[in-house]
């Protein structure tokens, strides 16, 4: 089984490589995008992005980030095919005004938002606060980070779970 797992993963990688050489913008949906060619944002450093990220490896998150000049960002995220463990309802989109945080000395930026009062059957009080944190190194368009679920009204303390997000968004 280990050999099979190794083979299937490596075949996937090879397929991706071949695809890259043939057509740089094509990706295989069944393979993670980490190995694939990534569209680059180019010199324009806007803060409006959209697209689909992988969520917890097998699921997906439709993400929209709509930034303004003052670094406020309208965030919308909808998660699919992820076991949310009663920490939020994947059928409900998460919407909030977040921020774009800049780390110029580290060639980094972070898109953040919190979603409070999320119904969460797994939490003692029945509510969770979700915190989105997506890191990007300009000029590349790859984002990685997570959606962290905290039981209660504030995103602090020990989280109930960190849901992993990664992939490439396209500038709007």
């Amino acid at each position, binding site marked *: 089984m280990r050999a099979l797992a190794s083979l299937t993963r490596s075949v996937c990688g090879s397929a991706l490589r071949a695809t890259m050489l043939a057509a740089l913008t094509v990706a295989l949906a069944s393979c993670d995008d980490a190995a694939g060619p990534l569209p680059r944002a180019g010199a324009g450093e806007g803060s409006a992005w959209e697209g689909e990220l992988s969520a917890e490896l097998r699921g997906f998150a439709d993400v929209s980030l709509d930034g303004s000049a003052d670094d406020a960002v309208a965030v919308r995220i909808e998660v699919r095919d992820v076991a949310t463990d009663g920490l939020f309802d994947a059928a409900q989109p998460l919407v909030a005004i977040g921020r774009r945080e800049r780390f110029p000395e580290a060639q980094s930026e972070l898109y953040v938002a919190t979603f409070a009062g999320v119904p969460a059957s797994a939490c003692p009080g029945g509510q969770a606060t979700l915190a989105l944190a997506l890191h990007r190194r300009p000029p590349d368009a790859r984002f990685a980070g997570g959606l962290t679920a905290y039981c209660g009204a504030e995103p602090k303390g020990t989280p109930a779970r960190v849901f992993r*997000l990664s992939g490439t968004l396209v500038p709007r």
Partner: protein
Amino acid sequence: MRSHERSVGPRTEHRRRRFTTAIAAIAAALAASGAGKARAEDHKFALSMLHFNVQYVAGGLNGFFITPNPELDLSAAQVEDNIIRQSFEPVLDLFAKHPTWGIDLEMQGYMLDVMAERHGDVLDKLRALAEAGQAEVVSFHYSDQLFLAYPREDWVRSQALTAAAFAKHGIPLGKTVFCQEGQAGPGMAAAMEEAGYQTLLFPKNLFGYQHGHETPIEPLYRFGNIDLLFSRGTSWQGPSDSIEVDFWFVDDGELLATGDFDPYIAEFFFEDEAAVAEKEAELLGLEAAGYRIATVGEYVQTIRPLLEARPQAPPLLDGTWQPDTTDGIARWLGGSGIWADDERDNDVRSLGALAHRELVAAETAAAAAGLDARGELDGAWRLLVLGQVTDASGINPFRGEIEYGLAHASEVLRIAREVLLRAHAVLSADGTPLSIDTAAGTVTPAGPSPAAPPEVEPQLALGIEPGNRDVEERWWDLGGGAYRVMLRFGPSIDERSIAVTFPGQAGEGGDLVYTPGLAEAPVQLARDGFLFDHFQLALSDGLIGLGPGAFVIKDMARVHIAATVRRDSGDVRFQDDTAPYGQDSTWVFQVVLGDQAQAAAAARALNVLPTVRR
């Protein structure tokens, strides 16, 4: 007897070397030869170190196999549960059957929290063995993190979490230290002493890589003000006493009771009663041959009075337990493994370094502003050490583990920025930028943005190996003999390896100069005190010497991969075999042409306790 080599999973191909030594046969031979007839002054010890790691698959197995399979796509909690029930509990049960046997059980503090939350009965069994002195419960870090690669403060917070977990759950914290991936190094002596530990078990192969695998060793050494022993058997003969010591197990503890299957192999990772029985028979044989199945702590306590003067440990560099097969710590800092296409070591480790910087800045600002942000900050430190888990960048990380590291570090950054914003509102009502000096603990108005430093010609001839990527090299004069160097590697569609070599000087004045993990100042070591051809260093503050009056410092939030040094050359090489396809990689270093104190201060100001403008 000899210790296990690490065993193999899909991520650790080097580890599957079957333990071929027939312990029972050797014990029988010893008994037959009379060696087993112990005199009162003979001390024969059989020791162990079962290294458990509840983050063996950090984030769980979901997505590990390309084809979804509910039976194998285990969540993080399910993997943790299996480790505790299938591999850990059977070991406790085995030793509960033999009250005269001792064992060392190493784990991160987080594992106690997991047991307390979901496996209280197993925690009770552990407590019973520990309180009886049968089990020495060894723990040096809360998370199985790559602590040698980060500033000491990150480990300090981690160790505090571990100590708190042990106290909360009523488990005596052992005085012996062994660490994730066998991390060990000279900076641990002072750190261990300050935290109340007594003995470091230093991996035999990390020692052998530096000084020769066959070099004779003593049964115990001085290591600063504490003790050190190597995880290799040896013997000693005194005027009336003798010591014979060996290790019956130094390996991943998960393998003992499962017939060498590790948690990645979920379909076979179950308790194997025959494997446990086989081990029990081996230990019974050792016992019959006169060996005391003991803890490291018991061993040290017994033999210390016999040794009139313990020798000082030889010079040691920091690294991991199988340097021959992982190319030292490089496997976690630029080296690639089985799932090479997914790896992005520099992304993972530089984001961890950035999160450290922002968190110490947030803590400083919160204190200056008088904020009650302890809840947020403590949570962030916990997430930081979890995210620094070794498996996010080595040995063979799969994508889920890589993203575990990135997700945790990103959340730390978010929390730190939230706290900084709140502090800013208190300290700068008009929004004026603040200068946060994390070393001095002060926050002052930042004033106008400093002028950009002048760009200058390269001060050293770098050996840059970009593969088929475009590369740009730029230097800026920061003043006082310090320079910023930027190397921007453009995207490649088919190559992962990029490297740069900084020219250095060996020979006279060309000692190794670097700051070991958990140390706070550089050490200077003669290269001819070692036997290695080359060695890989993590550089916890980014600093390494290039010879007299020249140093290079990684800007760890931009480049955090291993430095390769050689015994016969002063050159320092940085190589990343995991640079992502299709993406830029921009590395930033500082070069200091000055003295060691200046370079050390620059490294601390850049990577450990920075001053940031926010």
